[in-house]
């Protein structure tokens, strides 16, 4: 139906001589989405009226010289609208429907998980929409606030440009939940970013001989900001002795990684986690 009307209106525009004088058809320059609007016509007699817009098409009979009422329901979608009034000739006019005031907004924050102390690591973007889900292109002010625990890390007011407001900032110093709030008038949206410990720092091991080898373990593993490296992080222990090498990939449990290595001779034990190396431990041969 919508397609037929579009074709009909297009044919009419091509076939009918369009005079299009402004005094014959007066349309508003712009209308707020969802608001009623009126179009003034001149002359007398019956005419056919067409309304074509984003997702809308209507054909109706109107009396020339009377105002044509456009209901707010027809003008929900922001964008360009075309009106045609046809008798023997057609007159046309256009107007623009702009988004209403913001009623909601989409808020995206990236990433969901970030190591602490990383520059420009957290970004967020907000898109305000009116009640009809039109992107609000008129500049509005969005306030972004980042808090970790009770501590405010970042607060910034940003005017939207072409319907978008965004921020970018460094992650905090402490592992834990980072709350990111975007607010616009009485609207707000909340997102959470998990700040996690960075790479281990000052990885140190201690060891002791046990009857069947060596028991080595790390001291509590922290990153350079003092955050505890999460459990499950793999720590690789390597024990090198004269007749071979032994390695164990052990996960950190309760802050400490521990491994049992079979070695009886003089042994050098080293430790690494990812691309970070720790200290070396030299152990004498088993007496």
């Amino acid at each position, binding site marked *: 139906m919508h397609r037929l009307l579009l074709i009909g209106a297009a044919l009419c525009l091509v076939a009918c001589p369009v005079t299009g004088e402004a005094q014959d058809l007066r349309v508003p320059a712009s209308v707020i989405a969802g608001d009623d609007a009126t179009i003034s016509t001149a002359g007398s007699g019956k005419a056919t009226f067409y309304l074509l817009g984003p997702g809308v098409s209507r054909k109706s009979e109107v009396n020339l010289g009377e105002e044509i009422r456009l209901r707010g329901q027809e003008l929900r979608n922001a964008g360009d609208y075309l009106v045609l009034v046809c008798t023997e000739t057609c007159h046309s006019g256009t107007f623009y429907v702009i988004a209403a005031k913001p009623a909601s907004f*989409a*808020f*995206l*924050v*990236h*990433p*969901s*998980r970030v190591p602490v102390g990383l520059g420009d690591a957290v970004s967020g973007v907000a898109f305000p929409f009116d009640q009809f889900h039109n992107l609000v292109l008129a500049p509005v002010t969005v306030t972004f606030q980042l808090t970790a625990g009770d501590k405010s890390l970042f607060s910034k007011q940003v005017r939207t440009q072409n319907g978008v407001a965004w921020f970018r900032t460094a992650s905090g110093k402490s592992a834990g939940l980072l709350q990111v709030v975007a607010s616009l008038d009485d609207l707000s949206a909340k*997102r959470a970013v998990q700040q*996690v*410990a960075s*790479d*281990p720092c000052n990885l140190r091991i201690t060891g002791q001989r046990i009857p069947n080898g060596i028991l080595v373990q790390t001291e509590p593993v922290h990153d350079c900001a003092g955050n505890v490296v*999460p*459990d*499950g*992080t*793999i*720590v*690789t222990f390597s024990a090198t002795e004269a*007749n*071979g*090498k*032994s*390695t*164990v*990939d*052990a*996960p950190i*449990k*309760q802050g400490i990684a521990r*491994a*049992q*290595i*079979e070695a009886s001779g003089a042994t050098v034990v080293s430790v690494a*986690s*990812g*691309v*970070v190396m720790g200290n070396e431990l030299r152990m004498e041969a088993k007496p």
Partner: protein
Amino acid sequence: MKFILPIILVVATAALMVLGLFVGGQAHGTIGIAAGSAVYTPQASTPEQALKNLLVDVQRRNWDRALTDVSKSSITDKQAFIQDWTGSNGSLRSFSSLEGFESRPLHITSDEAQMRVRLHWATPVGPLEDVRDFHLIREGDLWKTVLPKIQVPSVPAQVIPVTYLRWDLVSGGGADEWGSKNVDAPHVRIISMNAVDSAEGALVMGEVVNEDTVPAFVNVNATLLDGAGSTIDDETSFDKINHILLPKQVSPYRIDFPNISLKNVKSVRMDQKATLVPASADPVIGVMNQKIESDLQGKSVLHGDLFNQSGQTVNISHVIVSFYDNNAKVVWVADGYEDRALLPQSSEPFAVEIPKSVAPKVQNFHVVVDQYSLGRS
């Protein structure tokens, strides 16, 4: 007229079967059933025939008759013998079958012989080869195989405390706006890459690290590009990688491009894909006593023992090794499957072969172990 063709087919089939039997019987040097023509000879008058009898019976799982091929001086029992060949505890061997074998004498006198057998196994992870040496002796007119004492692994009853550590994954609801509440994929990075030519084709290998604090399922892909930027071929690391990487874990990867030479390749595009998956930090498998030695055939082999430090049985272990040159560059990545289960607190040996062309360059190596345990993801 209509019976002529079937008759010809039947005659031709019978003729081929007879021919096949004779041709198989005349084979020298290599014996076994690689061609599917093994025939059991009740009176084994040669060491080759005695060993062949044993292996044919093992292949057919005819255990009682197989034990008649074994010398009475062998220190083994039927149960241990069966378990040695069929595997246990859900190991890779228990899902495998002996597809064929080739044997060759190492040393033969009038009374005893030393034979080396290359066993070809069909397994769920592809064909695997195993080399075993057998000792045979002559008992009267017959040759018999002497089996060493077979150590059936057993573990004493014990309680092993484990601080259970695992990651579960909760998917977000479908109502999220633009997926704004989803959890990001793990951050994984390729830390080294080396492309080389080999006899089989081009190889791309290196190492990849999970830099994140969550486990990742990782796949590494490589695309070979020619001078015009067109794709020559693209492949993935398939099973030459430890797919599930725990936080900060490093895995070797190798991508094979069969029948492609690097001289036609202008550049290589690398791409790693990481997905968030549930995972467990247990079991921990230590790799002990690693050393590179030459085997009896003169090949360089990395030997070691896998030590299961946890309290659960590891059914199938997969060893992946990256070998480095003196500049810490990855010059080779090799892997191997352990066909015996790793019982709790016990060890099993492993061996990974290093190609002759690479062996002189190898200065260091890094072994990682992937594992599969029945009933666990």
